[in-house]
């Protein structure tokens, strides 16, 4: 059996307590929510924190307050199933519920949290492997090695951003609130992600994600399309989040964000530009899809053949935009 390494486990009851323990633990400390990302990584010895701090007893992180009119605040420890089933999320932010419903399986969604999904480790076929396997390729740049096997000439790690909710949050302009012993800060979701497979978050390890603030829904709609081999379990090997603000017939503002294709969510400004200031019609949709295809540069480190995934950037952007045609 695959088993966890030994570690110390803490279950703080307040945010203050949680960040204090994390501050004291230093580099060997890690927060855990549902454990569905961290524990498999620990069993495979990709991550070996000596101090694991659960965020599941922090009452403030379980709240969902507000609605589409004033904006919705979702605590980071809200279980994904509850996100999928929440009446206000379904009514006012259906794209979030829909994207959440595509995550993994019902069993995992009963354990994983929205915060955990937004902070998901980047993934790669060379990294998400057991210790012995990685030893066979002399490890990799992300963990214990010197070379990125997917792009050996590169000095950068190309592990892939693999969350479904990340491109959606970036596209709809969500904000994320972090707390640490040094204080609190709120940033745009887009500002959290860094285009590097190793340092993929603009966040210190000791900062605790507390909640996600969704903007009021007036005047925009959004959609999400996910590409994966099977209808369950599989991470996105391409995700397209499309967000449009439409004024009568013309597109006032747009954001097309690709997930599962690069170390960070990829915002395709050229696709948005093809839509903004024009009627939301087929010609514009095709131009936007083409722009997504041009910018998408997947590599050979996930399921499917990467050249085909690039082509699917066009197809799935088309689908995501057609979903928004009423």
């Amino acid at each position: 059996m695959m088993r966890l390494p030994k570690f110390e486990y803490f279950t703080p009851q307040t945010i203050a307590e949680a960040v204090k323990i994390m501050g004291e633990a230093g580099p060997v400390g890690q927060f855990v929510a549902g454990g569905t990302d961290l524990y498999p990584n620990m069993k495979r010895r990709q991550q070996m924190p000596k101090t694991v701090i659960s965020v599941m007893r922090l009452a403030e992180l379980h709240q969902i307050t507000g609605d589409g009119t004033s904006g919705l605040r979702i605590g980071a420890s809200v279980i994904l199933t509850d996100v999928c089933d929440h009446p206000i999320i379904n009514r006012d932010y259906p794209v979030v519920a829909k994207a959440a419903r595509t995550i993994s399986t019902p069993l995992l969604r009963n354990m994983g949290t929205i915060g955990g999904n937004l902070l998901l480790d980047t993934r790669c076929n060379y990294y998400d492997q057991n210790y012995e396997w990685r030893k066979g390729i002399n490890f990799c740049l992300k963990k214990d090695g010197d070379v990125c096997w997917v792009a050996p000439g590169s000095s950068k790690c190309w592990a892939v951003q693999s969350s479904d909710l990340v491109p959606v949050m970036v596209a709809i302009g969500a904000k994320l609130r972090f707390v640490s012993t040094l204080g609190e800060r709120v940033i745009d979701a887009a500002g959290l992600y860094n285009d590097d497979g190793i340092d993929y978050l603009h966040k210190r390890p000791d900062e605790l994600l507390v909640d996600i603030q969704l903007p009021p829904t007036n005047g925009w709609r959004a959609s999400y399309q996910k590409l994966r081999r099977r209808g369950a379990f599989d991470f996105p090997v391409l995700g397209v989040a499309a967000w449009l603000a439409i004024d009568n017939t013309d597109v006032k503002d747009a954001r097309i964000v690709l997930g599962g294709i690069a170390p960070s969510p990829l915002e395709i400004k050229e696709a948005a530009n093809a839509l903004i200031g024009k009627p939301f019609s087929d010609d514009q949709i095709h131009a936007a899809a083409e722009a997504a295809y041009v910018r998408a540069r997947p590599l050979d480190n996930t399921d499917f053949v990467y050249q085909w995934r690039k082509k699917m950037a066009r197809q799935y952007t088309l689908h995501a935009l057609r979903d928004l045609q009423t």
Partner: protein
Amino acid sequence: MPRHSKKHIRFRLNGEETEVAFAPHKTLLEVLREDLNLTGTKHGCELGECGTCAVLVDGRSILSCLMLGLEAENREIKTIEGMADGAQLHPLQQTFADLGAAQCGYCSPGFLLVAEELLHKSPNPTRAEIQEALSGNLCRCTGYIKIYEAVELAAAIIRGEQPV
């Protein structure tokens, strides 16, 4: 000199108050199988990739291979051993057995508990709802069809539309 000291917890297991001590880095799967001798809960990967290890925690199905044993404290845990009511099998257990939904039977405990959770939430599920609810459980033997049929028949029995 002990290698690690055991942690001791109390929780409700299959309707009974239970205490157990175990190495703190163990998962609920390991505690159930190794410290409580309840080997009905199975494992296929220990990484959350197959659903075989599913148990119910406070009525909700979860992957016991990814839940720490420590997290069971003060919770209500149900395993396959607790599904029957004394000597009376749960209708799902009866229909799985009668309709051939258990071939090798290794995935069956996981499927049964997830199906029980489904029927609790949704007493008259459509085929599509059943497929979705069970989409996190892999089976290599049956091709799933007899599992759906067993769930549908059990649902009808529970609703009182079919004799036991």
